[in-house]
């Protein structure tokens, strides 16, 4: 427990990380404020008004409208909700998969470890974006799912992202498990005849938690970036749901008439990703974790 308190103190002194946490709280509040903003303006993010296309700021539309006359502020807020939700959900799924595989590989070693590490090396080296595009374009109706419902498209994007996002967590969790398994308390538990699953959950997991948290935080930014590319390419979040990447698809053809449409969503993606990366670095420094290669991402 003492180590955790020390880590908290170190984190609080890490100026940029605290700033990043504040930025993320603000972004989270923006996402939460979306329904309030909808009722305050008496509009919906999906409301199309072709008579008010590309309108400037006004009382009805505080920062103007997009190429279909939809309220820009509402679209940005809904985009915040969608991007943060998808990024966090995908990171959570990826972390659970990665932690389970990484801890098992590190603890049991042997062929399981060898196979797993081969797979992660392989996934890390692959050109992932083309692969993701093929996955995202696959026709789910052939698997008996209704792909036209936006919830299904969103669920699919979360799963696809998790499928490529687990490797970083797995590597760090494995490293931690390799160290922890040699500790006396683990050996004592084993000598007492405690089952492997219990040892993994009771002893190995809690002591491998800090690298897992660091990897999870760092992967959120990465996953939000990947989601935005896929949505931009028309293969991620599906309209009418707004996403920052998808908003840029519409803005791309309008850069002469309405450059502001291309600036805001991209800037928000950028700020969010920077904030998650800085926060991850801060947590890493606070916990004193050796994270592997920084800044290599899946796209």
């Amino acid at each position: 427990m003492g180590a955790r308190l020390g880590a908290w103190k170190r984190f609080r002194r890490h100026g940029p990380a605290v700033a990043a946490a504040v930025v993320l709280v603000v972004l989270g509040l923006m996402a939460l404020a979306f329904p309030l903003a909808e009722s305050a303006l008496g509009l919906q993010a999906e409301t199309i008004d072709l008579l008010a296309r590309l309108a400037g700021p006004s009382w009805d539309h505080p920062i103007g409208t997009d190429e279909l006359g939809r309220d820009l502020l509402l679209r940005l807020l809904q985009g915040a909700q969608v991007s943060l939700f998808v990024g966090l959900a995908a990171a959570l799924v990826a972390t659970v998969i990665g932690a389970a595989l990484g801890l098992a590989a590190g603890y049991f070693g042997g062929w399981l470890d060898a196979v797993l590490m081969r797979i992660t090396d392989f996934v890390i080296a692959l050109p992932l974006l083309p692969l993701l595009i093929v996955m995202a374009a696959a026709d789910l109706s052939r698997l008996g799912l209704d792909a036209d419902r936006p919830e299904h498209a969103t669920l699919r994007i979360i799963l696809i992202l998790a499928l490529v996002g687990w490797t970083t967590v797995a590597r760090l969790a494995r490293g931690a498990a390799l160290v922890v398994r040699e500790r006396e308390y683990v050996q004592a538990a084993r000598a007492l005849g405690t089952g492997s699953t219990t040892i993994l959950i009771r002893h190995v997991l809690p002591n491998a938690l800090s690298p897992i948290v660091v990897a999870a935080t760092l992967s959120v930014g990465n996953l939000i970036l990947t989601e935005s590319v896929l949505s931009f390419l028309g293969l991620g979040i599906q309209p009418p749901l707004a996403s920052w990447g998808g908003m840029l698809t519409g803005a791309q053809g309008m850069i002469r008439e309405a450059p502001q449409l291309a600036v805001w969503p991209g800037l928000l993606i950028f700020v969010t990703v920077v904030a998650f990366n800085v926060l991850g670095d801060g947590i890493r420094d606070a916990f004193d974790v050796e994270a592997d290669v920084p800044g290599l991402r899946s796209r």
Partner: protein
Amino acid sequence: MIRYLCRRAAGAALVLVIMSMVLYALIGLMPGDPIDVMVQADPRLTPADAARLKALYGLDLPLHERYLNWLGAALTGDFGYSRLHHRPVLELLWPRLGVTVELLGFSLLLSLALAIPAGVLAARRAYSWLDHLISLLSLGAYSVPAFWLALMLIMAFSVELGWLPASGSGDLAEDGTQAWRHMVLPVVTLSAATVGGFIRFVRAAMMEELRRDYVRTARAKGLRERRVIFRHALKNALVPVITIVGLSLGTLVSGALVTETMFAYPGMGKLIYDAVMASDYNLALVSLLFATLLVLLGNLAADLTYAWMDPRVRIGAGVS
């Protein structure tokens, strides 16, 4: 050495076969097979005609049999036709591959040309304002969405200033200046994906070397600081950088897809994206496999260079 190469080649072949299986299964899930599209386009075709055509092309077989047929043909060098372009896939692929390799090469050069001096400077002046500035810039470079960076560059340099073309490409051999002008923005966009990571890595590797005894010895015997840095420390710090360059190839190919699509640059990435969007299965499958092969070859080249630069790494024993 020969044994090592054989093992690597076998590993690469295995990876490609697994990739092709996964992709084949996935692409089997993409909307509309060729006959469905034909039926939609031609109202005179009856369902019976469609069934006959499917039988003729083997499309009524179960997935694994279709895959084996495809693999058999591919192994004899027959990668089939592109439905979108009505031409053999390989014929489409070769020129595109060249364009992408060129783009990747220049962007890698630019990345390293920026990252090595920046990383060395940051390590030399560790924890100074300069170091913080450099780490801020590298953070920005690897956090920026490439497609948005491309949009911003187009807005600034093509629309506002009109200095550089926003789309297309030129032929280096025919009209050099024009080709360079077309290449500037794509190369810059693509470099952003890797330069941030490279800077952080060069800085870390350099810090590590500067702590070593041989650096102290070199300084103690009165060598100039420049010589200590560039002749001694940097030479050793660059060896692990090779691994990172190898590992970044997948990122680069992914980045090429975005960049080429944004700038309508006729490379592999755009070919893959267009093929997927037009459900041109075969073209998408084969180009993705070639992109993967490119990455695997690049990784092998990086590992061989590493072994050649660092005599401590003995090929054949520990390295797998």
